[in-house]
């Protein structure tokens, strides 16, 4: 089965049901499906071939949702790029993936203008929003989104061009080398993960699922896929920035499913939640970083009727585990066990499976990615032969403790990747940005424990002699180059950094010094 069937099947079974509530507008399944058909024809006419990549560089919006389903209908591979991505990384991703199409809007014009001259593979730019904010880009064909989905366009379902073992999506994630890697997900991978998750969350057609997480983050993306899979209603918000407005929406729409991350629960618990009628909320899910136990206790008190799911995931296989809600009071720090139709186990350094103890988490299942896009060496480091011929299992790089009953507890990373808000941050990528700041002599980036973020990004710098740079200069510099979640939370200036015997910066000692 192909992922676009999530939308198509729901549209044929319940055409008039509201599929999406976004920006004060409501869209039925039939409306979305027909609009996605039109856009798919538009992409095919513009030259999109089977397997071509389409970069979706937009805020959470109906255009982004249509963009990903239209890409699949046209036989393409979608990539949702964080809308705060800056020009250098954007051009890296477009060139690394050789994306044929960039779907964006006028708000991202400054970054798109900067990359236009150095992204030769990307011949087509589809621009959402008002036509008067049009854009002329040398060597690129610029098409208006509104024009491509216009009522006079062909809204028939395009002939299917893909099979289920084809790629459906690339999701770029940080690598320890500092170079982003494209996680290759097939239709089989995505359908398997969405099926497992909707099974344990017991999602049904009557669910109304809130999504305030960016679609570039797989947790945000899957809310769309899962809602459409079961024929539920998705309430898509751009962010959780104005909590009262979001809470009003939750009440007004009768939201039943509330996916959060700890930064959201931290804000929720600062408000007087008793003033809102949240009685329809059936479940709350958390992933990215563990919910502090105090948050769990408070949420349980405020939403006594709701099930709270503590979960753990990796972009490379989407979700790894979930804690059955009846266990949350018993073992609040555990992320549970593998999800349905998936096997997870912990191995020691020799690769031997441990019944209990500490080791690296390994994942086996149809949800495991095909590898990193055109990076065979990186792929071989994490995908290793499994029990069956040709099968590969995922070595997560995450250290876990497994208890006698098989429950999992996250301990940390084997490499130096920082996990903050559930997004991976490569220290190298941040250090590379820091070294571009004139006056910086040395830069080392480490993750420090943070109760809400999981880890916070900390930069430790030494400066060239006579240079005066403030923390603000550093943050401004980083904010111009990195996605928001990669910008350091803390900057420390030092006279010198610890060294190893070979003269390299001693990250281990530094890490112990800043965290201990």
């Amino acid at each position, binding site marked *: 089965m192909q992922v676009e069937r999530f939308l198509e099947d729901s549209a044929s079974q319940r055409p008039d049901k509201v599929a999406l509530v976004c920006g004060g507008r409501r869209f039925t399944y039939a409306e979305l499906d027909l609009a996605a058909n039109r856009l798919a024809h538009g992409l095919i006419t513009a030259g999109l071939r089977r397997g071509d990549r389409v970069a979706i560089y937009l805020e959470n919006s109906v255009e982004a949702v249509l963009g990903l389903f239209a890409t699949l209908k046209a036989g393409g591979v979608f990539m949702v790029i964080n809308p705060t991505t800056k020009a250098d990384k954007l051009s890296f991703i477009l060139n690394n993936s050789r994306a044929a199409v960039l779907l964006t809007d006028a708000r991202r014009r400054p970054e798109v203008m900067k990359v236009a001259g150095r992204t030769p593979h990307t011949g087509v730019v589809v621009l959402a929003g008002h036509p008067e904010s049009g854009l002329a880009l040398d060597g690129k064909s610029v098409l208006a989104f509104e024009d491509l989905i216009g009522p006079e366009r062909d809204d028939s379902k395009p002939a299917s061009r893909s099979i289920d073992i084809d790629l459906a999506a690339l999701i770029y994630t940080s690598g320890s080398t500092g170079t982003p890697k494209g996680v290759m997900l097939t239709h089989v991978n995505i359908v398997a993960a969405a099926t497992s998750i909707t099974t344990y969350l017991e999602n049904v057609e009557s669910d109304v699922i809130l999504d305030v997480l960016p679609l570039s983050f797989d947790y945000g993306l899957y809310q769309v896929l899962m809602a459409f899979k079961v024929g539920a209603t998705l309430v898509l918000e751009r962010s959780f920035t104005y909590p*009262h407005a979001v809470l009003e929406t939750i009440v007004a729409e009768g939201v039943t499913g509330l996916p959060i991350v700890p930064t959201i629960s931290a804000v929720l618990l600062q408000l007087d939640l008793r003033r809102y009628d949240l009685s329809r909320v059936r479940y709350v899910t958390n992933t990215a970083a563990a919910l502090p136990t105090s948050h769990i206790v408070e949420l349980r008190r405020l939403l006594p009727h709701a099930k709270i799911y503590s979960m753990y995931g990796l972009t490379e296989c989407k979700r790894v585990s979930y804690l059955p809600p009846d266990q949350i009071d018993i073992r609040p720090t555990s992320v549970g066990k593998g999800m349905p139709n998936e096997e997870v186990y912990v191995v020691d350094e020799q690769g031997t499976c441990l019944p209990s103890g500490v080791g690296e988490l390994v994942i086996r299942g149809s949800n495991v990615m095909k590898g990193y896009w055109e990076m065979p060496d990186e792929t071989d480091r994490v995908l290793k032969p499994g029990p069956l011929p040709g099968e590969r299992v995922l070595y997560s790089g995450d250290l876990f403790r497994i208890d006698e009953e098989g429950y999992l507890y996250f301990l940390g990373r084997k490499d130096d990747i920082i996990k903050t808000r559930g997004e991976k941050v490569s220290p190298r990528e941040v250090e590379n940005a820091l070294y571009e700041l004139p006056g910086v002599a040395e830069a080392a980036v480490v993750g420090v424990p943070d109760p809400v973020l999981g880890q916070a990004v900390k930069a430790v710098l030494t400066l060239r002699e006579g240079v005066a740079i403030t923390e603000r200069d550093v943050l401004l510099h980083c904010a111009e180059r990195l996605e928001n979640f990669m910008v350091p939370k803390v900057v420390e200036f030092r006279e010198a950094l610890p060294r190893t015997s070979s003269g390299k910066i001693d990250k281990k000692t530094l890490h112990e010094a800043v965290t201990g």
Partner: protein
Amino acid sequence: MTESRFRSDIRAYVVENFLFGRGDELRDDDSFLESGLIDSTGVLGLVGYLETTFAIAVADEDLVPANLDSVVRVCQFVERKLQEQAAQRAG
């Protein structure tokens, strides 16, 4: 529109806290939300600043874009809150 007497203070706070001090490109009617300047934690920080600096009480239901999503809107919001509080005291 006449310029608010609070504009420079509020603008300075936003530039200092959300733009790392560089505000030359920020227009007073730029949406914080659309420009990705601010997240929910930032909104609570802004509210704390308004409560302390202008001695206003900000309720949960005030945390909506109509009140807080640009320098202009924040200025109008503070003016309105101050007037409401003055009216309450007078009444």
